[in-house]
């Protein structure tokens, strides 16, 4: 598969994650100004609407026609413009669903040590999203280590003693890291097993790792 395709899909994925996180992180403002909750919710809704508009084919087609953009970026947007609108919206919706799952994981982490300062609501999402974005903003920090912890400890410090906030933060890092290590090594095991040169007993059609070009004869 061309590196360009991998990079474009990674950029799409990152764009969706960052966009959803930015929308959710706006709720952080309610930590400091509790009376503006309505405004924060409105900002999240506005972010969702913006995303829905940005993903619209006509907007993507317009962006790909902007001559001021560098050629590589224009052609990347053209490639993205081929994605159907409802597919792009489904990606967006699933990313939002993923955020809800992440909130659930954080809430379970809190519950596991007997701390439930708030119900499963947007404040948890705001803590996670804001700390995720802070981790992204720090260059060369592996998986945002350090930055995320400082940010989420600081935010959680509004509800609980700092020692508890630190404990939850470290536990949550352990939870996410464990999940990534488990899936990562699981992926390594599957990859090693599927590699054609290490699994000669498997039929080539089942074990081939080469991507199948759309429209190729292999599609049947």
């Amino acid at each position, binding site marked *: 598969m061309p590196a360009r395709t991998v990079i474009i899909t990674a950029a799409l994925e990152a764009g969706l994650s960052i966009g959803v996180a930015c929308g959710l992180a706006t709720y952080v403002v309610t930590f400091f100004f509790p009376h503006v909750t309505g405004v924060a919710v409105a900002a999240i809704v506005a972010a969702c609407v913006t995303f829905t508009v940005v993903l619209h084919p006509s907007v993507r087609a317009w962006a790909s026609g902007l001559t001021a953009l560098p050629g590589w970026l224009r052609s990347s947007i053209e490639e993205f413009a081929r994605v159907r609108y409802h597919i792009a919206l489904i990606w967006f919706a699933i*990313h939002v669903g993923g955020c809800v799952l*992440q909130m659930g994981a954080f809430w379970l982490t809190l519950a596991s040590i007997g701390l439930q300062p708030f119900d499963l609501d947007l404040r948890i999402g705001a803590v996670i999203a804001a700390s995720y974005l802070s981790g992204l903003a720090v260059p060369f920090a592996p998986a945002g280590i350090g930055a995320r912890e400082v940010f989420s400890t600081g935010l959680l410090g509004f509800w609980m003693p700092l020692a508890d906030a630190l404990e939850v933060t470290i536990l949550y890092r352990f*939870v996410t890291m464990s999940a990534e290590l488990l899936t*990562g090594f699981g*992926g390594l095991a*599957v990859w090693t097993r599927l590699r054609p040169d290490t699994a000669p007993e498997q039929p080539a059609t089942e074990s081939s790792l080469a991507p199948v070009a759309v429209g190729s004869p292999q599609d049947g």
Partner: protein
Amino acid sequence: MCGAIAVPMARQTISAVIWIGMVGTVGHRLRILPGLAVYFLCGLGRYAPGKVAHVLGRVVLLGP
């Protein structure tokens, strides 16, 4: 705690499926199992400094 670990794993699986879908819609189709394996394996790249190691991992594993 196990439940808390299982939830991000489920989230990653969902993200992996989205990524496989993205790759498919921009012109290449990955089979589900190798696709999941590449996504999960390269997820470890996030723990390398520089933030893009997971993308480089995908380039290397899926390269021509």
